[in-house]
């Protein structure tokens, strides 16, 4: 390449900035610090997540690396009282938390009026936090897998979560989390301060009189020790106040409540924009009868796969099923796509794997799903194992299927597929085989190096 061409290429979009250290730290906390578990949301359609496998891998790996790590903090769960409503904790844990949280040792770690924060132990130093208000644990949950460096602040978790009014449920806005620096006794949020309970946990209800003032704003904050001395300075990113009926901002705010900073003016941080799926333009592709439970749907139920455009120009495979045309049935929902139509591939069949940790007959197991896209010459797909050949539901260049067998869970590190041969075979309109994917091999390739 000539120098001029190379120079032009080097200058192309060179105005794109390098993220600063604050943005990098925020990203680090988001990625490493927690595997967040969304609470039930009234979403009407379930989106099949291409990233589910990644999430499962992270989850599986993180959960087990916590085992055997020596605790660096006091056994905080021993001093708290039992959960305010144990059944709520059991329900949230069953539907949302990692398979081996120790629900029997769940403890209320801090209360604030009619709000309570329950911690459920997870291996040696991990825990999941479940906030509840008015006895209802409808504000999501969040898990932290290990705490190794309390004073650095990297292990702190601070959350702002809102709930809009609906029926008999009143609007609520709470802040909660844990400051892991053992010297800390109080977090100053600006308009008000909260004392830290044993273990560094905190919980507070944002006074309704201050909602309008704080909504969408950022204030200076500090973490203080017992003498009132400032240990850390930072900024508080307040969420948007819960107003009226359902709002787009309802639920857990995507940015941490607390951001450590060296000083200066605090400005509101913008949550990263996520592509939006236009469900109003969804068109039906095919039906799938489920072999295993899948999120809100039970084995034996039929779900409908549809295609819908996304604001980033891609096309997503989305699912709808019984119960989510009217009232949402809860469960986990994610704004991701199983497959992207038209994504250039040298392969006639492009496969994405999903492995969801669940409970079957009381035992943890991974339910495996395959989804993806096919080139136009493929008229039919078959899934061939050692024992059977089954037709794979497909249409419009997309496909989706559950594997008939599961793999045991939870597993450490890379989650293995169910043993045996698994071939995805593409046939043309005459029934001639024109493509074949060895799924275990593709799965290994999809797990980087």
């Amino acid at each position: 390449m000539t120098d001029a061409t190379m120079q032009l290429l080097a200058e192309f979009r060179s105005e794109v900035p390098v993220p600063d250290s604050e943005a990098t730290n925020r990203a680090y906390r988001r990625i490493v610090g927690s595997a967040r578990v969304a609470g039930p949301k009234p979403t009407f359609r379930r989106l099949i997540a291409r990233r589910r496998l990644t999430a499962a891998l992270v989850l599986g790996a993180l959960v087990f690396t916590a085992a055997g790590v020596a605790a660096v903090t006091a056994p905080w769960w021993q001093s708290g009282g039992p959960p305010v409503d144990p059944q709520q904790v059991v329900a949230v844990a069953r539907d949302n938390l990692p398979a081996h949280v120790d629900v029997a040792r769940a403890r209320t770690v801090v209360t604030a009026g009619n709000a309570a924060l329950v911690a459920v132990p997870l291996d040696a130093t991990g825990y999941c936090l479940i906030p509840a208000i008015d006895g209802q644990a409808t504000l999501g949950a969040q898990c932290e897998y290990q705490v190794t460096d309390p004073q650095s602040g990297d292990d702190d978790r601070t959350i702002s979560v809102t709930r809009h009014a609906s029926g008999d449920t009143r609007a609520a806005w709470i802040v909660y989390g844990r400051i892991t620096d053992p010297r800390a006794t109080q977090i100053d949020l600006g308009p008000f301060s909260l004392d830290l309970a044993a273990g560094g946990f905190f919980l507070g209800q944002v006074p309704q009189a201050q909602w309008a003032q704080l909504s969408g704003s950022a204030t200076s904050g500090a973490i203080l020790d017992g003498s009132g001395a400032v240990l850390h300075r930072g900024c508080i990113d307040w969420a948007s106040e819960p107003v009226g009926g359902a709002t787009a901002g309802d639920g857990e705010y995507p940015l941490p409540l607390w951001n450590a900073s060296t000083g200066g003016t605090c400005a509101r941080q913008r949550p990263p924009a996520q592509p939006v799926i236009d469900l109003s333009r969804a068109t039906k592709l095919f039906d799938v009868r489920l072999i295993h439970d899948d999120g809100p749907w039970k084995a034996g139920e039929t779900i409908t796969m549809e295609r819908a455009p996304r604001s980033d120009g891609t096309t997503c495979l989305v699912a709808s099923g019984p119960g989510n045309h009217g009232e949402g049935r809860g469960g986990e929902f994610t704004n991701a796509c199983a497959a992207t139509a038209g994504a250039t591939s040298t392969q006639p069949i492009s496969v994405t794997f999903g492995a969801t940790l669940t409970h079957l007959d009381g035992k943890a197991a991974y339910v495996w799903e395959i989804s993806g896209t096919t080139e136009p010459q493929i008229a039919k797909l078959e899934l061939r194992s050692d024992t059977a050949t089954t037709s794979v539901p497909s249409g419009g260049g997309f496909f989706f299927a559950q594997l008939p067998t599961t793999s045991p869970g939870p597993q450490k590190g890379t989650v293995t597929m169910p043993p045996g041969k698994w071939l995805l075979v593409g046939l043309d309109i005459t029934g001639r085989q024109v493509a074949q994917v060895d799924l275990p091999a593709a799965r290994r390739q999809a797990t980087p190096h």
Partner: protein
Amino acid sequence: MRSGFAEAFRHEYPSLQRYLRRRVGSALADDLAAQTFATAYANWERFDRTRALRPWLYGIAANLLRHHWRTERRQLQAYARTGVDVVANDLDHAVERADAEGRKRELAGALAELGDAERDILLLHAWAELTDREIAEALSLPLGTVKSRLHRTRALLRNRLSGSGQEQGGASLLAEGEPE
């Protein structure tokens, strides 16, 4: 927390995130960068520390990015056609600005016409500043393949930007799917 991961993250995240932003814009890039490092974190203990880190990370990112090649191509085509670069414009969220620099529009068009795999190699070289060997490792390609593709891609780009409209040796800008 995995030993050494935090340091690796703070060292590599900024450049990788910027690289992805230059490829597909901030909204998508932030997501892809997060997925890249989440994957790296999950596999951190199994990563051979005697290997170079950057090719591994950029390899993960490349695997994720391939799902968005079409988006990238469309963005480049739109830039070439209209002079408005959505990737640059999402930086300031201000009024759209028409880039009057015709050469960059030409370049955008040329990049859009490259095969996706070729564009990957070229931009890993030019923007991520990986060596040929690192690109080979990142993309799991033979070193010779990387070298030949890079050479050919440079030639194609040079021809396109020279305005001659001639392509050397009859090679097509659309090199996708070419056998090794």
